[in-house]
Structures are given as structure tokens and as C-alpha cells.
């Protein structure tokens, strides 16, 4: 599987390493050269494209057209949204996006009804866990 990861922060870097270890092909797009080189030194492999992952030309260079999965995991919802918008235009890839504000989920999901973007909101996951533990403690 070819996975394109946009955003080379902690999530993006760990994801890249894990997917490579599983034998997948990975390209990571990161704007800051320092972050990209740090990962490459660690894994002793060239896997990054340096540039703005919200720029269609950069995504072309990274091979978006043949991606099976595009992961938008920058720290900003608006940037992740644009990555998904471009990926939907240029490929048939499954899109996975990180979202900070759970209220923004619906916007991501509205981009493509047939092949919806998978939205991961850590805020929502934590809220979910909290509400379950509250229910559990209330019932005991």
C-alpha cells in the first residue's frame, strides 16, 4: 500500500516509521527541512518531500495521484481540510484527517458522501472516554 502522510510532526513521524516497518511504501510531506531530516537520519531512508502539503504542486510531486491512502495530520484543521480537498480532486485515495475541533468533523465528512473522509479527533476520543468513565462510576 502507498500511504502519503502530510505533516511531519510527532504523529506523522511515528506513523511513517510504523508503516515502513510493516512494509508499506510511505512518503511524508513536511514543510520544515529540519523535522524531515531528523526522521530520515533516524530511519536511514529518504521518505520525505519538503514543502507545503496544502500546495497542489507539492502533493503532485509527492505522488498523490497514485496514493492508496492520504493522511492529513498537520496540527491545523484548515490545513488538513485543504489536503483532503486536493487529494479528493487528484486521486481515489482514502483520506484520513486529524481534526482538533470536533465541530469541524461534519465539514470534512461533507466533502465526499460516497467515499467519506475518516475523521480522527483526539478531543472527541478523550471526551468519549470521559463520558464512559463518568457513566461507569455513576452506576457503581
Amino acid at each position, binding site marked *: 500500500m502507498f500511504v502519503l502522510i502530510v505533516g511531519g510532526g510527532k504523529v506523522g513521524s511515528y506513523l511513517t516509521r510504523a508503516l515502513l516497518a510493516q512494509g508499506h511504501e510511505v512518503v511524508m510531506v513536511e514543510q520544515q527541512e529540519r523535522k524531515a531530516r531528523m526522521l530520515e537520519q533516524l530511519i536511514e531512508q529518504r521518505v520525505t518531500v519538503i514543502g507545503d502539503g*496544502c*500546495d*497542489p*504542486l507539492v502533493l503532485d510531486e509527492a505522488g498523490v495521484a497514485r496514493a492508496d491512502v492520504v493522511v492529513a495530520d498537520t496540527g*491545523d*484543521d*484548515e*490545513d488538513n*481540510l*485543504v489536503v483532503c*480537498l*486536493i487529494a479528493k*480532486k487528484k486521486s481515489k485515495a482514502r483520506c484520513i484527517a486529524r481534526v482538533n*475541533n470536533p*465541530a*469541524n468533523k*461534519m*465539514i470534512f465528512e*461533507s466533502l465526499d458522501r460516497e467515499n467519506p473522509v475518516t475523521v480522527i479527533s483526539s478531543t472527541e476520543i478523550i471526551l468519549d472516554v470521559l463520558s464512559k468513565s463518568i457513566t461507569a462510576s455513576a452506576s457503581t
Partner: protein
Amino acid sequence: MRYLIVGCGRVGSTLAKLLDADGHQVIVVDENPGAFKRLGQKFKGHVVVGTGIDYDVLKRSGAATADGFIAVTNGDNRNVMAALIAQRMFDIKKIVARIYDPTRGLMYRDLGIETVCPTTVGAKLIRDMLMEAPWDTLQSFDFGKVTSLTATVRASESGKRVSELERPGRIRIAAVRTGKTVRVAADDTILSEGDEINAIVAPDAISEFAQMFQTASPARMSA
């Protein structure tokens, strides 16, 4: 009308003042409270501190009852996201977003959001100044791929047929105005000095078009 403007920079604040002066109800949203200084003392509209890509902030700003929504923060990505929230969560009918990147601007057109690209508009204005353009740029399509221009027929073109001035696939004369009469141009329409023509011009034919209406013009050369 009720307008919601996201981003109180130079464009946002200027637009807010224009709409306010025209009697509209204007609400401006910006993350930085200091930005509202640009609105000046006379501004009668409302301001809301917050980010324009947050449902709750937009709701508090009256997005549910807005007639128009304008996204002019300094981030292209934020503008398209704010515009999508306005369109899909608040069902605002008229939405305009500023997008500096022409490639992305074109892409967003399919989303039903109108985009303004200052990059294309600015570059074309400068090009027209450089060429001392003998035309008025009316409108451009597809971010400058095709432009609609008007120019005045000089003595040197007087008596020529429309087809003589056209270049297949590159310059097409659409309409001719003689005095107060406008007609759709035909191949054999004869042009007279002083007629105003409206042409659709491809980007690679702009300078050719400029020469046609400029170099042979005695009036312009003496000026």
C-alpha cells in the same frame, strides 16, 4: 442586507466600511482585537473576537441570519474552511472567499464558493499598465486564462471587417458598439473609427491585440 466578514485586515476592514456606509448591517470577526482599530470611529457595525473557522464563533456572530459571508483572513486555507462552514452548516447563500493561490482558487470553484484571487487580478492590472493598454479589462475567466477586453477602433482599422482583426482560437470579437447601438459582431461586420469592440482574448494574444489597437494609432503616438 446582513453581511458577516471574517478577517479584519486591510481588505476586510475596507469592505466593512464600504458596506456599512451603504447602510448594510455588518459584523466583523477577527482573532486579534487590535485589528478592529482599522474600522475607524464611524463604523456602526458589530465586531466579534474569535476565529472564523469555529462553528460557535460564527453562530455567535449571527451566521444563521446572514445574507452574505466574506472570508478574507490572511490564510487561504482558513478562508476556504470558513466558507465551507458558512455554506454547509449555516446555509448562507452568497459566499465569497479570497484565495491568493490561483491553482487552488480554480479547484474550489466546484464547491460552490465564489473566489477572488488578488494575485491574478493584481498581476493583470500591472501587465496592462506596462503595455499602456489601449483597452479596458472587463472580466477574466478561469483565473486569467481568457480575458474579455474592450478597445476603440482607430482610423487605421476603419473600414476593416471583423474577420480581418480576429485570430482563430485566440482573438474573437464578440460585439461592436456604434454610438448607442450595440450588435453582436458577424464576420463581415465593417468597423468604423470610434466604434467600441468587445473581444475575448487568449493570454498568448494579448500583446498582439495591444499592437493592433495601439501602434497604428496616430492619436496615441502624438500623445
